[in-house]
C-alpha cells in the first residue's frame, strides 16, 4: 500500500515537474512565445541565485521585449561550471542563432564558447567577458574602471596617514581581481602614507563582512576608510560601525550601485560607489546581438559606462530604483 502511495506521489510530482517545466525547465525561463520567425537567442546566466545575475537576467528579458525579431530563452548555470557548460552544449545542439554567456568562471567556459563559434553560432560573453576568443564578441562593465573612479575620488578624500580596511571578492574572480588591481594602482601606490590594517576575502557577502569588521574595530581604534570591492560588503562593514561615535566620519567605497548602497549614500553613511547597471548591460547585450545577427557588424567588444555615484548625484539613482520597485517610495 505504502509502495503504491509512493509510486503515485512520485508519478504526480514528475508530471507536475514536466508541466511546470513548460515554463521553466532545468532552471530555464522563457520570454513570451511571439509565434513568429525570428532570431532565437539563448542567454546562459551564471546563477539565478546571485542577486546581480538575477537582476541582469530579468533585464535581459525586458530588453528582448523591445526587439520583435528576437526570442530570448534564459538558462541558469546555477553557479556551477559543469552545469553552465552543459547548458552551453545544449544550446549549441538546439541550434540557437546566438548564445550569450555570462561565465561562472571564464577559463572553465572558454572551450565551450569556442565550440559556439566553431558551430557557426553568434557568441557573446558578458559580465565578465572572456578575452581572446577569435570570432566571439563581448559586452561588459570594465571592473578596473569601476573601482578606479572610486579610488581616484578617494585620493583626495582619505586623510593623511589614514588606516583603512579592505574587503575583497572571491579570489580568481575576474571582477574581484580587477577591482583590487585598480585600487592598488590608482590609490595605494599613490598614497604610501595609507596603512592597510585589515584585509580579507569576504566573498561578496554582507554577513562575512560584518564579522570581519566586528573584529577589526576591536584590534584597531582608528579606521578611516572601508575599501570594498562591492557594495554588499561595504554595507556589512558599515552596519558594524553604525551609531558608533568614534567611527562617525568613516569613509566607505563600494562598486555595483545596489539599491542598498543608494540608500546609504543618500543617508550620508557611504561615500561613493560605481554603478554596474544591469539595465544598461542588458540593453547593450541585446543591441550587440541584434547587430551581429543582422550582419550589421561582425565582431563587437564594448563596455557600459562606469559612473561614480556620490552624494551629489545619488537622487537620480534612488529614483531609478524606486521606479523599479527595489526601493520603497
Amino acid at each position, binding site marked *: 500500500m505504502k509502495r503504491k502511495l509512493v509510486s503515485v506521489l512520485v508519478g504526480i510530482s514528475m508530471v507536475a515537474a514536466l508541466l511546470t517545466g513548460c515554463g521553466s525547465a532545468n532552471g530555464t525561463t522563457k520570454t513570451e512565445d511571439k509565434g513568429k520567425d525570428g532570431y532565437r537567442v539563448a542567454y546562459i546566466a551564471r546563477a539565478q541565485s546571485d*542577486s546581480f545575475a*538575477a537582476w541582469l537576467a530579468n533585464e535581459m528579458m525586458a530588453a528582448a521585449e523591445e526587439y520583435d525579431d528576437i526570442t530570448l530563452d534564459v538558462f541558469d548555470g546555477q553557479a556551477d561550471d559543469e552545469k553552465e557548460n552543459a547548458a552551453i552544449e545544449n544550446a549549441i545542439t538546439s541550434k540557437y542563432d546566438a548564445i550569450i554567456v555570462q561565465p561562472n568562471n571564464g577559463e572553465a567556459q572558454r572551450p565551450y564558447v569556442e565550440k559556439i563559434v566553431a558551430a557557426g553560432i553568434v557568441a557573446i560573453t558578458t559580465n565578465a567577458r572572456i578575452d581572446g576568443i577569435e570570432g566571439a564578441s563581448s559586452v561588459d562593465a570594465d571592473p578596473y574602471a569601476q573601482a578606479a573612479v572610486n579610488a581616484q575620488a578617494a585620493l583626495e578624500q582619505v586623510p593623511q596617514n589614514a588606516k583603512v580596511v579592505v574587503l575583497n571578492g572571491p579570489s580568481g574572480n575576474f571582477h574581484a581581481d580587477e577591482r583590487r588591481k585598480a585600487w592598488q594602482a590608482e590609490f595605494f601606490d599613490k598614497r604610501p602614507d595609507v596603512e592597510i590594517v585589515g584585509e580579507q576575502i569576504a566573498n561578496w557577502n554582507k554577513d562575512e563582512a560584518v564579522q570581519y569588521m566586528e*573584529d577589526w574595530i576591536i584590534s584597531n581604534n582608528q579606521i578611516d576608510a572601508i575599501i570594498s570591492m562591492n557594495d554588499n560588503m561595504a554595507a556589512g562593514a558599515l552596519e558594524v560601525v553604525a551609531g558608533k561615535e568614534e567611527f562617525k566620519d568613516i569613509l566607505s567605497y563600494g562598486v555595483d550601485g545596489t539599491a542598498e548602497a543608494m540608500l546609504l549614500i543618500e543617508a550620508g553613511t557611504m561615500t561613493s560607489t560605481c554603478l554596474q547597471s544591469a539595465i544598461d548591460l542588458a540593453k547593450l547585450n541585446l543591441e550587440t546581438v541584434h547587430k551581429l545577427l543582422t550582419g550589421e557588424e561582425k565582431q563587437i567588444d564594448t563596455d557600459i559606462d562606469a559612473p561614480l555615484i556620490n552624494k551629489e548625484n545619488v537622487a537620480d539613482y534612488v529614483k531609478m530604483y524606486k521606479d523599479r520597485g527595489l526601493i520603497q517610495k
Partner: protein
Amino acid sequence: MKFRNNRVMEKYSIFIVLFVMIIICSLLNENFLSTGNITNIIKQLSVAAILAYGEMLLIVSGMLDLSAGAVLALSGVLSVSVYKSSGSLIIALLVAVIVAVVCNIINAIMVTSFKAPPFIATLAMQTVARGIALLFTKGQNILQLDNYVVFGQGNIGPIPVSIIFLIIITIIIWYLLRHTRLGRSLYAIGGNEEAAVASGINVKLNKYKVFIINGILVGIAGVLFMSRVNAGLPNGAVGYEMEGLTAAIVGGTSFSGGIGTTMGTLTGAFIIGCLNNIMNLIGIDSYVQQIVKGVIIALAVIWDIHSKTKKTTKVVLVEEKEKVVSN
C-alpha cells in the same frame, strides 16, 4: 586511580582545549579578553551555536540536517517580508519559526515515513528551500528593515539580544537533553535504534519531535541572522549547516549517534568562534584560515574515532574477562 583520571580527562578534554586556547589567544592579542571582544565572539557564534544545537540533537538520534542554512534563509526572508508588511516583531518571529518547523516536518516525513536517509532528505529540502527563498525575493535582497534589527543588533541593558536568545536556548536544550524522557530516548535511538524500538520507545514520534525542535532553532537563527545583517538575504547563510555541524562535532558529538552534550556543543562553537576571531585579530590570511579550520575539524573527528575505538576495546576486554571467569 589512573583509570579515573583518564575518565576525567576524556569527559572534560574539550573544556581544557578551550581553556588552553583562550590563554594562547590572550597572549597573541591584548584585546582578545576585552569585554567588547568577548561580546563580539558570542554575538558572532550565536547563530552557528543555535544551529549546532539542532544538529547535535539530530546527530545524537542518528540523523542530521543539511537543509539548515537554506531553511534559515527561507524563514529569514519570509519573516523580514512579513515584518515589513505587518510591523510586528512577534508575528515576524512566529512566521520564521513556523516556516522552519514546516520544512522540518517535511524532513521528518521523508525520514520516518518514507525511510529516506536524512542526508538525502535534508539535501533535497536544502535545494527546495533555497529555491523558494530566491523565487519569493526574485533573487534580490530585502532592504529597509527598521526595528527588525533589534533581534540581532539590539541590547537589553548591557547584554545583546542575540546573546540572551543563546543563553535561554542553551538552558532549554540542556534541560531537554538531561532531564526529560525525550532526551534519554534520543540517546537510546542514536545508540541503537532496534534496541530502542524493542524497549518500547516510539522512535517515529521522537524523530518528529527532534526535527520540530530543530525547526524552531533554525527559525530563530534565521531571524537573528537577517537582523544582524539588516537585510533579507535569500543567498545568505550558504553552508551554515556546516558551521553548525562543525561546532557539534568539535564539541564531541559522535557521528555514529548516541553521544553528544549541550555544553560540549556550546564549547565546540566557542572553539570555532575564538579561532575565527583570533585569526582576524592578528590578520591571518583568508586562505590560511580555511586550512586551520579544516585541520581542526579533521583533528576533532580523529579524536572522536580514536576515543570510541579505545572505549570499544575496553568493553571487549571486560566481556572476554567475564567469559573467562564464568567458564
